[in-house]
């Protein structure tokens, strides 16, 4: 992964990895941490300028005193898009980052041409007693791996990780908790605002995702005017990792 540069924004020094050349593509990572160093991003960097911020708190970074919500991230990225003077950006959000991307899009699409939500959280389609989103903080690690991955061999293995990698994993888990604990992984208002999204929107979903299932993706799709949902077989919550080729193909074809 390229070294992040720091973009100074009001109230936060934001680490951002930038790589590749072409149309700007904003990558908003999920609870697992940055994705810009993964093979799918190598492929995308051949045709896009990838702009990949690290949300405050992830990878051991500092959380500004006032920051504790997805709403805060939304305003940080509005500031960042202004600071970089992004135009016609493709905004791609993964899981929790998809929630951020959706919040950005309902606010304004002035700097956005396309929106892509990958196994995104952020809405609560069901009733108050439906567990729409698996409780990642209340699920044993082995069961969580089965929920999140199509092929268990792709799941991270804490027992085999270096102390440094583990500390990053713990930092990312802590940061995920900061942004998603309550209301859990969603904004009750968001589903009433998604009608505002006026840019073409693609939802990419792993068919085996048990954290947010394809049915959840379909509920999301229905709330966004004209959005399309593509379900990728043999992939769980991270289709960009488990099915890199299919993921890149669908993404590139949607943007072209």
């Amino acid at each position, binding site marked *: 992964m390229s070294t992040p540069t720091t973009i100074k924004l009001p109230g936060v020094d934001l680490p951002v990895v930038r790589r590749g050349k072409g149309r700007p593509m904003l990558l908003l990572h999920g609870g697992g941490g940055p994705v810009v160093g993964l093979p799918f991003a190598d492929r995308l960097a051949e045709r896009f300028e990838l702009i990949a911020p690290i949300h405050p708190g992830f990878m051991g970074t500092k959380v500004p005193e006032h920051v504790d919500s997805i709403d805060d991230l939304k305003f940080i990225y509005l500031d960042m898009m202004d600071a970089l003077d992004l135009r016609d950006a493709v905004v791609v959000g993964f899981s929790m980052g998809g929630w951020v991307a959706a919040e950005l899009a309902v606010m304004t699409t002035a700097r956005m041409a396309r929106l892509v939500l990958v196994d995104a959280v952020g809405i609560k389609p069901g009733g108050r007693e439906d567990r729409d989103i698996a409780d990642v903080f209340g699920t044993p*690690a082995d069961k969580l791996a089965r929920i999140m991955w199509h092929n268990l061999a792709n799941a991270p293995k804490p027992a085999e990780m270096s102390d440094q990698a583990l500390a990053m994993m713990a930092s990312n888990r802590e940061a995920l908790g900061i942004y998603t604990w309550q209301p859990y992984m969603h904004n009750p208002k968001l589903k009433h605002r998604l009608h505002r999204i006026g840019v073409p929107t693609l939802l990419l979903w792993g068919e085996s995702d048990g954290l947010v299932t394809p049915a959840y993706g379909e509920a999301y799709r229905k709330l966004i005017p004209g959005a399309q949902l593509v379900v990728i077989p043999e992939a769980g919550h991270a289709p960009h990792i488990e099915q890199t080729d299919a993921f890149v193909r669908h993404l590139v074809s949607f943007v072209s």
Partner: protein
Amino acid sequence: MKAWFFTEDAYPYLPPDKTYDSIRVDLPSKHYDPAKGADLYDMYLDLWCAADEMGLEIMNNEHHQTATCVVPAAPIMLGILAKRTKRARLLILGNPIANRNQPVRVAEEMAMVDVLSRGRLECGFVRGVPYEAAPANMSAWRGSERLWEAHDLILKAWTTHDGPFNFEGRFFHARQVNVWPRPYQQPHPPVWVTIGSGPSTIPVARHKHIGAVFLAGYAGINAIFDGYRDNWTRFHGTAMPLDRLAYCALVNVAETKAEAERTAEKLIWYVTSNKVPPHWTNPPGYFPPPVAAQILKGGRKLALDTPKLTAEDQMMRGNFFCGTPDDVYAQIKNFYEYSGGFGHLLMMMQAGFLTYDETIKSMSLFTKEVYPRLKELTAKYDPEAMKEARARAKPPGDGTTTDYFGVEFNRKAS
């Protein structure tokens, strides 16, 4: 030295532990028989009343969704004890105010207990153990900051007597705070806060509150107590009075070593029954990431999550004082001197299947044969003489323990 009788009000009638994953958070309540539970409440209340009659002080606490402590609302127990006891101080350690949404309500409950008991309340505030995050649905992130903001609101609510004030903080909002009743004790009941190593002692020492430590053992106690004493001196320019520190351990006294060993096996249920999987012990934001990382790896065991430790192990660690009155006095004296001294001994003397009669026997032996000697020991506390005693005191075993409660409050405190 003040000695406090403590039981966590466990419900021990559980199926074999192989049949469930956790004694906390998600153990189904079908395992709780309300008729047995009612008998247990009677027994625990009777034990506290016996403590009152014997001359011991009283401590209680609360936990949620757990068989280890079936008191999810400690103020209700305190309300009963306020009317059933005559003289004992009533310590709640504590109110989990980082996890409660309405600090003003806590101020009201505590003021009420103080009036009901005619000024016998000792009011503890805690962040709460990690497995409280899920039952409270409360993020552990910035738990210490929440605790101290709630603390500030509660103390102002207790001590403001000329009409409503406004409080719009980072976490809590109340625009018309005007608590009735006001506390019986003036300006307010004594305040206790749990402390660990690191910066958690700073605000407690600054406020002159009593700092309480649970089961830190020989390995952990000095860093915590010395931290408090140093901060006290830094803020107030004097030596810390002995009664500002408290230590909580398991205590079991019997007439013979053999009998002590037998009852110790029952009491140690408190530790051995605590089967809790990592996803409940390690909520995000509770432990610093390097500690959380080791729990994720499965390579780190928490002090209370090591059920294979025996009573003997816990004695070696300084978490359990057990034996004949002479043994127990010697063990407490050694720990007292090793740690530089403390003014309160919080004694978990009942747990698991230890019966009413067995507990009463242990309490009464303690009261008659250990307590007077402890009072005498601490009455002659002198900081200079303590330095010499401290240099001589050595842990009985290798002094090892884990730092579970030590890291509990390591996060930044205001």
